[in-house]
């Protein structure tokens, strides 16, 4: 089924179709359509629990409780709301609960703006809450991916017993595009041995906790988590390369910005500058090696983001100083244009920086 839909609505529809059991959320622009769409559609279609919580703090803790029963549970918010969820996310990561958290980013810091931004990269990828934990972070670039990644996120969340964050932005959330949905899936009760669903006589009681008072036990838990993250790094790297084969320059960008950069690369090629685009899709795990593999063939990288330069740190780590990496960013909710990206690239080239 192909539909013309806003990114936020595609998210909600995909969650209904994937057979999600519960959504807990609190309104915030630019993603309130998610809760609105679910409130209209979800209960009649699949019986998904849809609850408007009193805050994002309550919402993420409802997710914690419900996810502990092995159900498919999710929430969505935008930057300030996701900041409020950080303690809960840390608990969820430590207790190894599968769930999906969507951040439809807006500009910050503070109350900021309701316009789109990508300034929560650090928070999402490096761990905005306390402790050594990681979320799997996926960055969609199309409304189609907003839908597809809901399904993928739940698969990964349950495969690794880990929270998955979909890191998107207000532009993609509000943008209308064609989207082809996957078939409606049944809601299902998975047979899992760790859930808190009521203790049958055949097992001792389960408990979900992140408390390990004894240092050696706490370290053991950490070592286990780090092993899992390593496994995720080995198996779940996702990225897209556009016109990179013969490129002299590569633009790195994630999310919707990567599409704008593709347009900029096309404009550059019309002028005879061979530009490609490398789009990390999984931000954790990050495609370090895949970016590095280009360093022998290119003269430099321009990293473009809607922030002051966050992913660029990982791009620099990837290339290990072998090629120069420059930056073009817009902040405060301003979306860069293909022309200004090309202009920035040409300036760096002319100035001998790239």
């Amino acid at each position: 089924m192909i539909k013309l839909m806003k990114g936020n609505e595609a998210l909600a529809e995909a969650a209904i179709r994937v057979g999600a059991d519960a959504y807990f959320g609190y309104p915030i622009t630019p993603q309130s359509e998610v809760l609105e769409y679910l409130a209209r559609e979800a209960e009649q279609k699949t019986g998904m629990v849809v609850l408007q919580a009193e805050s994002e703090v309550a919402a993420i803790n409802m997710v914690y409780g419900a996810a502990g029963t092995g159900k498919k549970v999710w929430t969505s918010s935008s930057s300030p709301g996701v900041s409020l969820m950080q303690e809960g996310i840390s608990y969820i990561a430590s207790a190894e609960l599968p769930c999906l958290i969507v951040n439809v980013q807006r500009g910050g810091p503070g109350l900021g703006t309701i316009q789109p931004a990508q300034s929560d990269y650090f928070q999402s990828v490096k761990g905005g809450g306390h402790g050594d934990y990681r979320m799997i972070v996926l960055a969609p670039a199309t409304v189609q991916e907003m839908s597809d990644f809901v399904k993928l996120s739940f698969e990964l969340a349950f495969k690794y017993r880990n929270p998955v964050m979909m890191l998107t932005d207000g532009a993609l959330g509000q943008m209308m595009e064609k989207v082809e949905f996957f078939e409606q899936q049944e809601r299902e009760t998975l047979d899992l041995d760790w859930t808190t669903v009521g203790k049958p006589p055949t097992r001792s009681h389960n408990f979900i906790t992140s408390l390990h008072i004894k240092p050696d036990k706490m370290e053991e838990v950490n070592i286990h988590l780090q092993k899992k993250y390593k496994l995720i790094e080995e198996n779940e790297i996702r990225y897209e390369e556009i016109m990179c084969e013969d490129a002299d320059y590569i633009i790195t960008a994630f999310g919707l910005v990567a599409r704008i950069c593709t347009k900029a690369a096309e404009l550059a090629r019309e002028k005879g500058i061979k530009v490609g685009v490398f789009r990390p899709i999984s931000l954790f795990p990050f495609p370090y090696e895949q970016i590095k593999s280009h360093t022998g063939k290119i003269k430099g990288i321009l990293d473009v983001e809607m922030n002051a330069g966050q992913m660029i740190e990982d791009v620099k780590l990837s290339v290990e100083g072998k090629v120069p990496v420059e930056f073009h960013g817009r902040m405060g909710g301003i979306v860069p244009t293909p022309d200004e990206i090309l202009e920035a690239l040409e300036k760096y080239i002319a100035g001998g920086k790239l």
Partner: protein
Amino acid sequence: MSVESLEKIDTKVFERPTTLIDTEMHYCPGCGHGVAHRLIAEVIDELGIVEDTIGVAPVGCSVFAYNYIGVDFSQAAHGRASAVATGIKRVLPEKYVFSYQGDGDLAAIGTGETIHTCNRGENVLIIFINNGIYGMTGGQMAPTTLPSMKSTTSPFGRDTKSMGFPLKITELVAQLPGTYYVTRQSVHKPLNVRRAKKAIQKGFEYQKLNKGTCFIEIVSNCNSGWKMSPVESNKWMDEHMLAYYPLGDIKLPNDTEA
């Protein structure tokens, strides 16, 4: 069964409830938490609902409730136990879900979650242990600390002018249409223990009716935090805490016998 007849027929001397795990508790000797745990375990056994009960432990002295009460348990972030209970109950509406929370947890950092859980009338049981202090962190002032009562952060006694008044959150939630049964009990004397047990039993049983939140405050002691012997602390509780937090039912279901 009336409370009076219950008081008479209870002749059992001692037996560990199956649901109370046979292990050493970390509570200070004389602390009310252990008694409250035991009552919950007894009720779960007697109602035969071990397989259908999920508990939520708070952050506070009772953080390890899951090591003592042998039902499936979720350990919540500080103050969020009722939100966690909401999450569980919403996806498992046929199960019995209870949270067990201290006064700092429920009436300070978690006030919002407490009020809204009760206001939505979530069909869960909230058991609220009010010992007027932050036991776990070493005796700091709680929202429930009495006027002039000393704590490590009110060393000269709680001055209501600058530190506010003890919060009677139980009376507050009783005002909300979402609550079904609200009562205040204690576990410092045998008679009170029996009454508290009866209240806990009702709190579980009412969940089947789907009529709203059951809220049971248990006024308790914290002999360590109060810097008293267990006996002194119970005496002090009787004289001071119960004067401010009078025992008894605050909201009774009108369609069931009390």
